[in-house]
């Protein structure tokens, strides 16, 4: 295919939320890339003002139906910093189990239903059922188990209700958690099968120079806290985050993008966590990855599916150890001291670092809020990817180019509801 070609997609499919893509290629060059966000805004930061600090977890969880718990966790941690609360170890552990459950649910959904069809040329997992029903079913069973984990701890999988600033509304019984282990061997088998299957997919292996940013604490594969680190030398506290990134406005898109000051676009999410914390993955996971010839460093966004499948298996194994380790706390939550102030917190949502910052008054009323979700951080990187890989697409037929372009966006598992409902937008 030579000459000029325009790819326009008015409704991106197999992504969360409403987005568009416009790509103009001419003679092998990418002339223009626009990843548009057509999702209507919900003004979350504005409507949080005047609400009480203890309402932030429940309200912000509504930003996303796929990763609500991530919002609960970042909001709780920010508010706990404000109130001077240090949650007991048992509470932290229980949060971690539930949050890993959300990783499993979100990743298994993406790997199985949204992303895998791309690598095999299908339009959906429904179409995969004839040839790959054992994979689709295994992936979904793992996803449902992740949902079950959240449900046991949180009351329900989407917008769970048992979490609060300081801990939980009630003590979660150990015997309830142990019931999750009743079909453990089958779940482990499914998660392992999914990872092994993903490792055999035809995944492009070209190398890109990318900055991967994630949390890292050196003790465990990061989820609830850590320093903000990258492969290009970033190593800062979460409270400094906003000073190190710069917001960029572009005339052609309706969403802000974030870049590292003085450098450029960056990637957050499973692939960044994987690359920055490979040493902390469970040995069983590393063994499988290495036995399939995949390295400890993933080198392009297509390989994010490997990171997701690896994190699914890792999370299953981690949850099992944590359930054995869990002992019921003496009290479900701890109270803090109400005072005026501002605090920020980052946790690792399934799609990457989720930043919350709140200012509250002395009576606990929220006066200012800022939320930076993973997808808005990835937007600049998505466009950069399209610019670089887009040149390759111009060698393909129109239909293939269209599919390829859409797949690049899907590599990032974008959560458009998140990106739009919680960022300051320009057009």
């Amino acid at each position, binding site marked *: 295919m030579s000459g000029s070609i325009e790819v326009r997609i008015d*409704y*991106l*499919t*197999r992504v*969360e*939320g*409403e987005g568009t893509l416009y790509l103009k290629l001419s003679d092998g060059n990418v002339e223009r890339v626009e990843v548009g966000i057509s*999702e*209507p*805004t*919900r*003004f979350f*930061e*504005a*409507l949080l*003002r005047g*609400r*009480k600090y203890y309402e932030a977890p*429940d*309200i912000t969880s*509504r*930003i*996303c*139906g*796929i990763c*609500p718990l991530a919002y609960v966790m970042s909001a709780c941690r920010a508010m706990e910093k404000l109130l001077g609360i240090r949650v007991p170890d048992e509470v932290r552990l229980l949060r971690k189990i539930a949050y890993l459950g959300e990783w499993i649910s979100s990743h298994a*959904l993406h790997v199985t*239903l*949204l992303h895998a*069809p791309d690598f095999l040329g299908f*339009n*959906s*997992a*429904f*179409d995969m059922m004839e040839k790959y029903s054992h994979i689709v*079913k295994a992936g*979904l069973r793992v996803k*449902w188990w992740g*949902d079950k984990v959240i449900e046991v701890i949180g*009351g*329900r*999988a*989407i*917008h769970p*209700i*048992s979490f*609060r600033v300081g801990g*939980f*509304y*009630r003590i979660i019984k150990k015997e309830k958690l142990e019931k999750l282990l009743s079909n453990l061997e089958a779940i482990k088998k499914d998660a392992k099968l999914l990872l092994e299957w993903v490792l055999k997919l035809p995944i492009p292996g070209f190398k890109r120079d990318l900055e991967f940013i994630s949390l890292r604490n050196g003790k465990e594969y990061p989820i609830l806290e850590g320093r903000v680190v990258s492969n290009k030398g970033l190593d800062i506290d979460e409270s400094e985050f906003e000073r190190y990134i710069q917001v960029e*406005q572009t005339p052609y898109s*309706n969403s802000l993008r974030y870049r590292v000051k003085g450098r450029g676009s960056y990637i957050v999410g499973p692939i960044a966590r994987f690359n920055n914390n490979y040493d902390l993955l469970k040995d069983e996971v590393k063994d499988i990855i290495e036995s399939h010839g995949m390295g400890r460093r993933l080198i392009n966004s297509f390989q994010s599916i490997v990171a997701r499948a690896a994190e699914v298996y890792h999370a299953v194994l981690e949850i099992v150890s944590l359930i054995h380790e869990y002992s019921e706390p003496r009290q*479900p939550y701890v109270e803090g001291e109400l005072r005026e102030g501002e605090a920020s917190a980052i946790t690792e949502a399934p799609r990457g670092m989720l930043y919350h910052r709140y200012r509250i008054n002395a009576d606990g009323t929220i006066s200012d809020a800022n939320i930076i979700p993973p997808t808005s951080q990835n937007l600049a990187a998505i466009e950069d990817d399209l610019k670089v890989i887009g040149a390759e697409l111009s060698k393909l037929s129109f239909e293939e180019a269209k599919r390829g372009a*859409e797949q690049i966006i899907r590599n990032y598992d974008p959560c458009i*509801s998140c990106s739009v*409902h919680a960022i*300051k*937008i*320009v*057009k």
Partner: protein
Amino acid sequence: MKKVSIATFKFTSCNGCQLQVVNVDEKLFELLDNVEFKFFPLIKSDNIIGEFDVTLVEGSITTPEEVKVIKKVRELSKVLVAIGACSTAGGIQALRNWVKVDEFKRYVYPNPEWIKALDKASPISDYVKVDYELRGCPISGSQLLYFLSQLLRGKGPILPIDSVCMECKRKGNLCVLVAKGIPCLGPVTMAGCGAICPTYGRGCYGCFGPMRDPRPNALAMRFKEMGLSIKDIELLFKQFTGWSKPFKELLNTLGVEK
């Protein structure tokens, strides 16, 4: 038997209710034997616009564009089902309905003039006829499945009409309101969630919206007697289903400055 064609459309919302369609465990595969998802962009790329037997609509209407789309969707749908708090009551984004949307735009956006947003975030029924409403933030996956299975068998689906209290009692929970003095919207909220909040030791926050004939005034009076301020009572009702008619009417009479 010809498969029943299903479509899902998302308006302003979080995707959580649509996701419940695939969160129904192994029963999903049984469902797939009987239905065909003709339009389901969250899950598939080959979507077909045409006539749909059943259309599930998630989200509230908040932009001029969405008004056009929902009208078209209504024309294409034999049965239109609003799913979730956003589509049935406006959702959390309806909190803006009490203020000037321009102020919200200015707070969030550097260039507010580019944001296309209607003054109000509204339930679907404000614009088109809705055949059934499934409540909840999010909807219950098991209720959705039960609803669809009734519909597939040609029955008029039966949905709850009474309060969370009924489910809570059946579960044998100690009443959080009476025994522990925790403010709870259970007495006025539609059943369907399985009374999860009281079961987990907190008060219901009304995400399934008002039950039939809820009389929220009486509950607000009770909260006042318990020592809650008008502001606290306002925050309780003004959440995910605050824009539903009965809660909105109560909020308008609470006497707080807007």
